[in-house]
């Protein structure tokens, strides 16, 4: 099974890297881009984990290691059964 975890800055935290990417896109003429937020992607391959266990384990892993809950939020999905 493969899980994808997406970590990005909370909305309340400024993301200067995202702003820089937005400016670059504007320079290229993509004026319709309103905002860019940059994040990190983790793909976790796992075995022998029951689906109901995932609901507990993935947020736990994300909060403890993958994200810093003070500045970051996370989202996750199963990308391969």
């Amino acid at each position, binding site marked *: 099974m493969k899980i994808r975890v997406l970590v990005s800055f909370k909305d*309340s935290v*400024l993301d200067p890297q995202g702003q*820089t990417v937005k400016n670059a896109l504007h320079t290229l003429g993509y004026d319709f881009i309103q905002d860019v937020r940059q994040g990190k992607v983790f793909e976790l391959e796992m075995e022998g984990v029951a689906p109901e266990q995932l609901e507990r384990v993935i947020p736990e892993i994300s909060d403890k*290691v993958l994200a810093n809950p003070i500045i970051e939020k996370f989202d996750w999905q199963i990308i391969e059964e």
Partner: protein
Amino acid sequence: MKFGVVVFPGSNCDFDTLHAVRDVFEQDAEFLWHKDHDLRGADCIILPGGFSYGDYLRSGAIARFSPLMQEVREFALSGGMVLGICNGFQVLLELGLLPGAMLRNKNLKFLCRHVHLRLDNADTPFTRAGKEGQVLRIPIAHFDGNYFIDEAGQDEIESRGQAVLRYCDEEGRLSDEANVNGSLGNIAGLINTNGNVLGMMPHPERASERILGSEDGRVIFRSIIEHFKETG
């Protein structure tokens, strides 16, 4: 007094820090390897600057899992003195010994230069040799030094005088311009509520000898040594 300087893979200010406490301040000092489990009787632990674990994941995020850091955590929680410099500050934040987190510098640049710092609390074991309002000139060298904490956390820090050092201009005035990395409240140095754990982005070990262009960093080491002499 004995200092222990923790060495992680990627630490690069470990020798400078050891030199400062051992040769400049003539104290007993030794390196502590991050994989060990023994603080070897150190009275003060220093987490030096550098790029522990290549700053993988987030600065300081992996170092906190080192075996020795579990001992450092217990040492700090039982009142032992711990000083985190630069990357060491980032590790203390990730370890939860200090509140808040570091973001990338506001201008997305690695900043390596001397800055001015205002000493806002001289009533701590790490700053007692200084004077409140004193302006120190000490170098910084970091990419992720833009201190962040939520509003409630900031109120708490400010009401308890935990923001020990702030980026300022030559005259000690706080301004956005002097706040080189964009830190909330111009915070450059932060102490815990018990007063035994200090994290600071500037490098006092790089400002402890005249030949280095500034001796203002001596205040920090002198304070620690004075405090230890008094309280043993």
